[in-house]
């Protein structure tokens, strides 16, 4: 470990690899008390072993306890926090300052991650896969494209987060100004809307089979329903309505 002759911070590669793989299991003990706090402690633990006294040292135990408390952030960007906090612990930063930093970092990381991943990248990749299905793609093409595309972004984002966290430590906040994090959701959103406009009718057409009149009728009914559901968006969950309508339809079809 830690600070090299040139003044840059570094960890042994095995420690970084261990932290990266543990980040994949960050939410293994997710619960309503500490949220992903225990996962942060679990992911950071290999680095904390490098504290003075090692595994049996007081510094290790105090840091592990501190880092396993309540924390809530986006799992893919948690590497930023894990890296930055690990560096702060290894640099011997005052525990109170670490606590304040922990509290300040969680919210922005969660918000950026939610916007970039859950509300942009995931729907975008889903729509691309649905589009490939609609265009006649095989099961392998649809699933393979989805998994490769989605996980290229997923695994790179996790790796970037850990690297930036370890390299910048408590100065990591400026990394959240990265253009991909700030502008990414906007451009991915536009691309998703364009692909969605093409992919959904294509997929409907393939599921329904030949017949322009039937497809036209389905799309007209879908547009009316979409407008209604979009109007009710704060009051209704689409999948619950789908469940209810489907249950009524199945019951009707069985009884008639």
């Amino acid at each position, binding site marked *: 470990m830690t600070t090299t002759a040139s003044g840059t911070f570094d960890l042994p590669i095995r420690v970084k690899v261990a932290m990266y793989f543990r980040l994949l299991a960050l939410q293994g*003990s997710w619960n309503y008390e500490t949220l992903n706090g225990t996962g942060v402690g679990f992911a950071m633990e290999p680095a904390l072993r490098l504290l003075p006294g090692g595994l049996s040292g007081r510094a290790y135990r105090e840091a592990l306890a501190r880092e396993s408390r309540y924390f809530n952030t986006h799992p893919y960007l948690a590497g930023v926090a894990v890296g930055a906090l690990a560096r702060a612990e290894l640099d011997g930063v005052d525990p109170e300052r670490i606590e304040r930093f922990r509290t300040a970092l969680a919210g922005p990381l969660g918000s950026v991650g939610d916007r970039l991943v859950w509300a942009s990248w995931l729907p975008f990749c889903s729509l691309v896969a649905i589009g490939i299905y609609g265009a006649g793609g095989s099961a392998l093409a649809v699933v393979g494209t989805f998994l490769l595309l*989605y996980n290229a972004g997923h695994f790179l984002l996790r790796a970037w987060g850990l690297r930036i966290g370890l390299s910048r430590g408590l100065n990591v906040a400026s990394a959240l100004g990265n253009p991909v994090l700030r502008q990414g959701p906007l451009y991915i959103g536009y691309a998703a809307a364009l692909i969605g406009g*093409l992919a959904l009718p294509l997929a409907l057409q393939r599921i329904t089979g030949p017949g322009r009149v039937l497809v036209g009728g389905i799309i007209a009914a879908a547009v009316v329903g979409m407008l209604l559901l*979009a109007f009710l968006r704060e009051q209704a969950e689409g999948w619950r309505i789908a469940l209810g309508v489907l249950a009524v339809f199945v019951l009707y079809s069985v009884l008639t």
Partner: protein
Amino acid sequence: MSLLEALPIGLLGSLLGLDVVSFPQAMVSRPLVAATLAGAFVGNPPAGLVIGVVLEMIALDTLPFGASRYPEWGSAGVVGGSLFAAQPPNAPGALPACLLATLLTASISGWSMVVLRRLIASRLERTRDRLESGSREALFSLHLSGMSLDLLRGGLVTMTAMLIFSPLVKAIVAVWGSESAASHAVVVVIAAIVAGAALWKIFHSLQRVLWFALAGVLIWAVLLVTR
């Protein structure tokens, strides 16, 4: 379906259920993937893909934000894919009946995740003193038991759902009264409505986003006319 037949599907459901939150969140638990894999498991990947696409459209409505409660699509996708892939080809009621079974499974499986999270929290409460003293063993035990329980949860949900819904779907398909085209159309309309409204919910705050969506629809219309 016997317990022995449900076991391998249950194993797939437990692995994909684990991916939803615990490990590694690589989205192999998305219904599109889960249902297709399950279809392949049963020997009919194209059928798994069809119900997977329908489920994926509906799943766009439930993105896993923070501590929100949402249906669990990993195990449910496996149930849907296995059920639909096992139905006779072109059976009129197969898609709606399997979709209904899948949505019910997703809902119950989502609830099982809430129960698991409470269970982990109560275990955490019992080991809080050890965690506060920096016990590595306590942290590892909590974390690894949480993941193991999640694995078990997904498997149990999948197997139970298969044992209940497999004969039920078969019975529904046998007495189905609606026409095949109408049955498919109803499912497709439901999926399209949910997907469209979900996309609007996600992206409506972006300026001019509607124009991009309309441009996509226009490309589709041009393709439809020229093909």
